[in-house]
């Protein structure tokens, strides 16, 4: 039902555009419309996921075709310095997204000089190497980014924010520094994947269908990229935080009572490095998230607080094999900051992945990937992502094709 619904809406949009981009002048990542400054771009991907034990990364044990994404964007330039544009996006990731079209980004950008520009609207959220490009299959060999740093459950929550950003680039001797400083808010609701961090019988706080209200005050942060004098080597530091991330719902210990929770400040810090040399790309990232969750159910006199967050890192290696093939592998490690114990698999997750990518041409690619997960940290058991009998180890196979223009 969901597949046919998706195809009904997506195909009429994508297929004519693909035809257009094949027969017209195609830019790198966009199609120019005549001699105007208008460009269009987009992609459509369809994948298959199979998990043998747990529901990693989503939905349920077994295989699913509910694994697709589509996006379409339009940008235009007005005068020398101003650029406007927007992208709509939809995904179906197990039981998350359900092919619902959302506004992914919509910006007005005024670039005064290379070292100072302003961007406002719905803006992509800078975090690590891939925070702004979570959905771009074309820029990496992997199907699933390392979950230790890029949880797919959080994609619909941390992909963009509503607010403003200043940015720029400064040359210093033989290197350059790119900076971004931003602030705003993120619209969230119980339909978002982040709700599964609150729900369910395994470590969750809310009973029944889960959290009934989710909101937050603001997000702010900064990112600094150092493009070093060493050819192909860069380092990235990203810091951001949410304020007053609040949730309400039926208390799992006593469902007739409403439990209220607040995380006054939830912070993300990510250190990243990437080294491109010839056909090889080496990447490594480390991330710490941290917050103090305060909970309160005054009707039954329950209140308290607890640490929430995780320490995650990964190392990745990719190699291009000629014009058509790319192989990649990574190892990721994610640990609970609340109660990590090496003897308790529910407090950690180790992820070993191997990927192969084949580019049919500039617009069509295919990928296959295998994962071996050890540990069940962030393996959910919620009304939306059922996993009543978690096993310590899980193997996941994924295949995906993406058409982009």
């Amino acid at each position, binding site marked *: 039902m969901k597949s046919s619904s998706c195809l009904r809406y997506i195909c009429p949009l994508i297929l004519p555009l693909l035809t257009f981009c094949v027969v017209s002048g195609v830019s790198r990542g966009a199609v120019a419309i005549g001699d105007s400054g208008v*460009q269009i771009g987009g992609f459509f991907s369809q994948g298959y996921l199979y998990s043998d034990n747990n529901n990693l990364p989503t939905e349920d044990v077994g295989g699913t075709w509910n694994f697709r994404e589509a996006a379409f964007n339009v940008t235009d330039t007005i005068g020398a310095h101003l650029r406007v544009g927007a992208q709509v996006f939809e995904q179906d990731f197990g039981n998350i997204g359900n092919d619902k079209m959302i506004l992914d980004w919509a910006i007005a950008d005024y670039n005064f000089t290379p070292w100072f520009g302003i961007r406002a609207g719905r803006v992509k959220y800078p975090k690590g190497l891939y925070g702004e490009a979570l959905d771009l299959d074309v820029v990496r060999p992997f199907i699933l980014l390392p979950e230790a740093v890029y949880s797919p459950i959080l994609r619909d929550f941390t992909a963009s924010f509503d607010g403003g950003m200043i940015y720029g680039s400064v040359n210093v001797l033989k290197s350059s520094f790119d900076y971004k400083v931003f602030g705003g808010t993120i619209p969230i609701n119980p339909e978002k994947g982040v709700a599964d961090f609150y729900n369910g019988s395994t470590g969750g706080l809310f009973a029944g269908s889960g959290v009934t209200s989710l909101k937050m005050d603001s997000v702010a942060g900064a990112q600094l990229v150092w493009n070093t004098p060493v050819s192909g080597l860069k380092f990235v530091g990203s810091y951001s935080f949410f304020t007053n991330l609040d949730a309400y719902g039926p208390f799992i210990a006593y469902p007739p009572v409403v439990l209220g929770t607040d995380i006054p400040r939830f912070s993300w810090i990510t250190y990243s490095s990437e080294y491109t040399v010839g056909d090889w790309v080496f990447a490594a990232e480390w991330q710490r998230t941290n917050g103090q969750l305060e909970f309160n159910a005054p009707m039954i006199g329950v209140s308290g607080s607890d640490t929430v967050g995780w320490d995650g890192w990964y190392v990745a290696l990719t190699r291009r094999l000629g014009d058509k093939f790319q192989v990649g592998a990574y190892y990721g490690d994610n640990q609970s900051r609340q109660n990590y114990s090496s003897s308790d698999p529910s407090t950690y997750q180790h992820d070993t992945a191997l990927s192969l990518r084949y580019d049919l041409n500039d617009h069509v690619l295919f990928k296959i990937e295998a994962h071996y997960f050890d540990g069940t940290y962030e393996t959910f058991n919620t009304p939306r992502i059922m996993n009543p009998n978690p096993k310590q180890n899980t193997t996941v196979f994924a295949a995906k094709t993406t058409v982009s223009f």
Partner: protein
Amino acid sequence: MNTRTLRRLGVLAVLFASLSMAGAAPVIIVNKSIEKEKVDAATLKSVLLGKKVAWDSGGRAILAVLKSGPVADEFLKGAVDMSGSSFNNYWRRLAMTGGGTAPHSFEKEEDLRKYVADTPGAIGFVDSANVDASVAVLTLAP
């Protein structure tokens, strides 16, 4: 001409073609509206990476690039220290995340040259053998 001579000529032709490819000599061409613009290597890199979007003399900097080939590879390696595929990925990422306006991309140098000639503010690169009077050749300032 006997078979051996023909074979030798064929080998020479292949060698000549290989040397021609290896000796690709890209030059920067611009629309004549900006031929007096002072551009050094750092400014060129900034334009190619979408960090500088307007010329000092006014008007938007409009990028035209070759999709692939030895001229593109040699030029991009020298100007932005990237391979063609890295440059491609860089711009795909920007264009798809609201970070910039993607370069206009061309298969043939003749088409790129014509676009630059016809588009105020345009900058691109072709092999030196493909320059004509319709465009200005930009020499990088020291």
